[in-house]
């Protein structure tokens, strides 16, 4: 472990928010990833004799449902864990896809300048003139609901934020000596952009990615809530909430727990993201 | 003796996570009516902090006044409530700060910023205060005051903004003007203009002035009395002529040597005082300047010298030193 990593971890451990965020997020990731191995019923396995069971703390009882069951008797805990798997995976995929596109375009705009820069940044401005939720809504409606389309939609709302910050960073890096000397020996622009500039814009891109993950998770849940995201019977937190709506008056837990899961996940990601931003570059605010 | 301002034993501490900063240590002096006092020292000498502290302008916490008294207009400022201090600030004591680029509020008109203290302390109506603001702009030498009042700070140059700051400071005819490095951020020509302006205003309005600076050259043409501070203490104090001709503290002597010599055509290389400023977290038990002082005696490292009348000097010339600087200089053959 290098000194940089050591310092990073020490600073993380010394912060309150960052540490809580990191630990919570790690716990979520591990729990949802291990969901199939845990002693819970399958997420789509219904049991009509155990419908709408309230949450219980009597874990000694065999086949108890700690978070209750939904309207067709599926175990809520299992659905939340499996739903979290999907939510986190979709969120991560969208953030990576949006990040790759945004970082590349940001580097090109910043390094090439001129026409490239003007056109790309104008595109960013135009897209930001469109409320993201609506953009996601109209594209999701046009593409039709599926996990693949969901990732594309979320990535489309996300690339602009990377592009902006990476472009700014590229403008600064472009003038540094190692880039100037690479130019002097007539290295190809592609080589300069990937070998010299890319490594130097990765840190701000990582900070943006963390903050974007929180936003994308909420947006995914909203789209699934509106029926434009993950389709049944697959559990997704937003979808489960929509299903629980009907039974809210009699079985509050069906809608309450998925929402709580979203909130805690987003909170942990935000805490970690805020801390990362302050740690690496407070100017990114 | 009693002047318009009597400072006695003023001590200021800052309680920080890293420890207690001994910012101002047992500072005592008196300012006569109409006197101009130049306070000279490097950053961290306590020259600015001690005046900010006596008017409640340091953040508390971490700042704390650990002792002393400051008598102004018959009252001890240190015992006044915040509301009573507010009446003194801007009304009887005017302030000019170092950086004119950041000391004015960027979103309010210059007129409004000058009128504020007049309305607050003199109870004038906004219209009358605006009138007064125009007079003040004229007084500090800004042409076309009626138009300039409606402008914002970013439409003024650095020197002009400092004139505005001075207009604000003297708006209520204060008895005392405190100027904290007001010319440091300005270029030399503008510096001279501002110095001239303050000299002129002082003569017309009959105020006392405390001029805080790190530059001995600035006080030469302005101050009646010079007071040199180091490590939160006064190390030498006296009439301006005596200090320049007959410095008794090695630090004062070092500052004077750092001045470019205007008498000689070939300018001497600026003499810098070597070494680090004192550690204010853990002040040494002796003279804080001793580690940097080529004339230091063993006693300098052991005991803090008291501020006492300098032997054989003019009345009012005080020094804190265990060594006899004129004799040591004579031995070295350095006559300056």
């Amino acid at each position, binding site marked *: 472990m290098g000194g940089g990593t050591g310092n990073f971890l020490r600073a993380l451990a010394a912060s309150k928010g960052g540490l809580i965020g990191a630990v919570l997020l790690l716990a979520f990731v591990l729990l949802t990833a291990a969901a199939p191995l845990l002693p819970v019923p399958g997420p789509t396995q219904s049991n009509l004799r155990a419908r709408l069971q309230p949450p219980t703390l009597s874990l000694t009882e065999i086949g108890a449902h700690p978070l209750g069951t939904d309207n067709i008797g599926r175990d809520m805990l299992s659905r939340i864990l499996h739903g979290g798997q999907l939510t986190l995976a979709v969120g991560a995929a969208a953030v990576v896809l949006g990040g790759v596109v945004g970082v590349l375009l940001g580097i090109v705009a910043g390094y090439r300048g001129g026409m490239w820069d003007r056109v790309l940044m104008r595109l960013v401005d135009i897209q930001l*003139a469109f409320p993201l939720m609506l953009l996601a809504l109209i594209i999701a409606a046009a593409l039709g609901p599926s996990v693949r389309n969901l990732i594309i939609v979320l990535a489309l709302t996300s690339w602009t934020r990377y592009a902006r910050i990476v472009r700014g960073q590229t403008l600064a890096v472009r003038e540094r000596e190692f880039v100037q000397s690479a130019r002097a020996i007539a290295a190809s622009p592609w080589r300069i952009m990937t070998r010299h500039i890319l490594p130097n814009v990765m840190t701000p891109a990582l900070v943006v990615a963390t903050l974007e993950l929180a936003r994308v998770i909420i947006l995914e849940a909203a789209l699934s809530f509106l029926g434009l995201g993950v389709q049944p019977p697959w559990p997704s937190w937003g979808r489960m909430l929509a299903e629980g709506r009907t039974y809210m008056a009699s079985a509050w837990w069906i809608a309450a727990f998925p929402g709580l899961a979203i909130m805690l996940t987003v909170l942990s990601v935000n805490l970690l993201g805020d801390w990362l931003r302050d740690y690496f570059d407070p100017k990114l605010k | 003796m009693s002047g318009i301002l009597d400072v006695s034993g003023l001590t200021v501490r800052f309680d920080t996570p890293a420890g207690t900063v001994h910012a101002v240590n047992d500072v005592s002096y008196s300012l006569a009516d109409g006197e101009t006092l130049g306070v000279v020292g490097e950053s961290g000498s306590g020259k600015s902090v001690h005046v900010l502290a006596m008017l409640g302008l340091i953040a508390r916490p971490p700042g704390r006044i650990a002792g002393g008294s400051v008598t102004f207009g018959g009252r001890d400022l240190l015992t006044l409530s915040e509301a009573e*201090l507010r009446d003194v600030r801007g009304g009887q004591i005017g302030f000019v700060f170092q950086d004119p680029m950041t000391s004015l509020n960027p979103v309010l008109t210059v007129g409004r910023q000058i009128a504020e203290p007049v309305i607050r302390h003199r109870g004038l109506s906004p219209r009358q205060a605006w009138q007064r603001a125009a007079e003040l702009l004229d007084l500090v030498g800004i042409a076309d005051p009626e138009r300039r009042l409606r402008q914002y700070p970013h439409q003024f140059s650095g020197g002009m903004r400092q004139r505005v700051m001075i207009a604000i400071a003297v708006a209520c005819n204060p008895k005392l003007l405190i100027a904290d490095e007001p010319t440091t951020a300005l270029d030399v020509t503008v510096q001279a203009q501002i110095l001239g302006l303050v000299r002129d205003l002082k003569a017309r309005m009959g105020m006392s002035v405390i001029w805080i600076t790190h530059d001995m050259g600035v006080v030469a043409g302005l101050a009646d009395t010079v007071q040199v501070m180091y490590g939160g203490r006064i190390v030498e104090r006296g009439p301006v002529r005596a200090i320049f001709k007959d410095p008794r503290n090695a630090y004062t002597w070092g500052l004077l040597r750092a001045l470019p010599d205007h008498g000689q055509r070939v300018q001497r290389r600026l003499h810098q005082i070597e070494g680090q400023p004192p550690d204010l977290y853990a002040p040494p038990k002796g003279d804080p300047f001793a580690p940097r002082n080529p004339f230091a005696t063993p006693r300098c490292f052991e005991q803090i010298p008291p501020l006492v009348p300098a032997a054989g000097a003019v009345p009012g010339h005080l020094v804190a030193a265990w060594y006899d600087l004129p004799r040591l200089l004579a031995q070295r053959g350095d006559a300056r």
Partner: protein
Amino acid sequence: MIRFLLGRLGESALAVLGVVTIVFIVTRLLGDPAILMLPVGATPEQLASFRAELGIDRPLVVQYADFLWNAVRGDFGRSFQHNRPAIEVVAERMPATLELASSAIALGLLIGGGAGMIAAMNRGTALEVFVMLLALLGQATPVFWLGLMLILFFAVDLGWFPTGGAGTFWHLALPALTLATFTSASIARLLRSSVIDVLREDYVRTARAKGLLPRTVMVWHIARNALIPVATMVGILAGELLGGSVITETVFAWPGVGRVIIQAIEVKDFPVVQAGIMMIAVTFVSINFLVDLLYGVLDPRIRLR
């Protein structure tokens, strides 16, 4: 000032053009509008005649120009569901959306502004920690979930408010609070750090050195400057708010544009979707234009450049 105004007006016009273009691209290039727009089970003849009717057998450039021209006139076609011009269906819902959104912004500024100020003026106390924790939670709470929980608690359990619909102040309260939560939280966090930055400024020390009353220093020297970054933020938040209104309206059965859009998506009534999206996007651009004007009013350095 006039140059600043004209410049911003031009940028707004360009943004609207961009929005129209995005709507055009999304609806024309991501599938056959005839299939998207006609109900499932339409015959090939119906599809063909519909394509001719829409003019989508013509070159794209012509279609785009046509679409632009129609958009300028507010013509987005007829709603299948309501059998009248889509723009009419949307326009009559606009007041409800504006009522909800403006209440939420006002509430957000009030709550967020107050909370941010309280946190900044009480640095290092338990109160600051508490307020900032609330703000963090507020930023992490999904709008639709908060709406449901508020309904569950205040409408179903306590019966203090109606569960949905519009008309009275009591109908407005829960949806406005739901929508204002994210806005309040964001404003509180921004204002806190903004005030803390301003407190360090030399001009605040100058104001105190003038002996001004704490109230004067607070309002004219601290808040007045700390609000400038918040003004920019309000423009961005307006986007979140208008997007969030789609969901809030659905949750609370609020008869606004957002709910109409969702209903139209469900039955593939695309003229209404287009008209609704355009309407909200143009509102967003207009809000940002107004925010920029406000920015100019707040900051003379922009106005008098």
